[in-house]
């Protein structure tokens, strides 16, 4: 065994609630292939049973384990300690831009509420009794929809976005990315009202295109590109409508 299994890591864990808090320091033995979620779980099982955090799948599917690790939002179940540790130190905090419930667990309500505000639900026009729509996987629309579809709702992009920090109403990268994916789904019938929903005061036009979201998305999605797509789509739709109303 390498001596890494006996070395210890100094971990600063944020403790508190929406009213405020401070860091607790823990010493955690380093293990091979250890993830940040392993560290948090080890602390909770061995040092402080009162530590609150959230996880479910542990394999990067559910999106529930995101936290700030050394200042960067990460999916903790898939983040290896030795890739992010600096000088045998780790700082673990709840996700930025979301209210804290307790310790490392954030209240995700506003994140999901914005998903709904951006009309993130698929609206079809057929029933299960009808034939499945034939969709070519190589059509440009389907390729655009697929490029944005693998979102696990982890809110890492939301935590990395400065515009969310400045404007609490901004719909944010995940909700807008979802809206873009649905706009490209040829079976979806809510395109018109969804475009209006994302073109408001706190919608896609607020994005600065600086790609914080795209740099940190663990699934390597590019919400910035999706939002740029929405900007183009809202503008071309607007011009088309004006042209039609003038020439009707």
């Amino acid at each position, binding site marked *: 065994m390498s001596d890494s299994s006996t070395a210890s890591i100094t971990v600063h864990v944020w403790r508190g609630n929406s009213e405020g808090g401070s860091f607790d320091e823990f010493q955690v033995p380093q293990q091979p292939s250890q993830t940040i979620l392993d560290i948090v779980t080890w602390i909770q099982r061995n040092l402080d049973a009162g530590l609150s955090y959230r996880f479910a799948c542990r394999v990067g599917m559910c999106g529930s384990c995101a936290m700030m690790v050394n200042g960067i939002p990460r999916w903790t179940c898939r983040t290896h300690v030795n890739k992010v540790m600096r000088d045998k130190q780790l700082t673990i905090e709840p996700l930025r831009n979301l209210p804290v419930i307790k310790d490392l667990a954030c209240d995700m309500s506003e994140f999901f509420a914005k998903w709904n505000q951006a009309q993130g639900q698929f609206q079809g026009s057929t029933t299960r009794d009808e034939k499945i729509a034939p969709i070519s996987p190589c059509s440009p629309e389907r390729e655009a929809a697929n490029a944005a579809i693998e979102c696990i709702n982890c809110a890492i992009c939301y935590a990395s976005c400065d*515009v969310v920090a*400045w*404007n609490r109403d901004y719909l944010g990268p995940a909700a807008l990315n979802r809206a873009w994916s649905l706009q490209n789904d040829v079976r979806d019938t809510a395109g018109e009202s969804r475009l209006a929903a994302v*073109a408001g005061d706190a919608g896609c*036009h607020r994005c600065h295109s600086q790609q914080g979201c795209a740099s940190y998305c663990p699934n390597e999605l590019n919400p910035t590109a999706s939002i740029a797509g929405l*900007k183009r789509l*809202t*503008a071309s739709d*607007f011009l088309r409508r004006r042209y039609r109303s003038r020439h009707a």
Partner: protein
Amino acid sequence: MLEIRLYLAQRISAAIMAPLVLLHLGLMIYAIQGGLDAGEILARTRGSLFWGSTYGLFVIAVSVHTALGLRNIMREWLQLRGMVLSSLSWLFFCGLAFAGLRAIAGLVGMS
């Protein structure tokens, strides 16, 4: 719809500015290399509809683009909204357009 209009205004003003900035830079280099002094430059621009309208367009595009940029900064950093935000943005637009157009009036001699 306001956001879409502002977005279009920002993009269109940028598209107008880009070639005109290059034209302006090229012109500056040409004038300096050619050793033209202020009087000689003015002699070429006085009464010229072409230079008046080219730089007039440039000034309007710059004023629109800058006012929109400042509008974004004011809403994000100062949390301004509604009438205050719109009035200040218009004020910046008018101030810039006035200063720019006045300079052009001096250049083409229509003041």
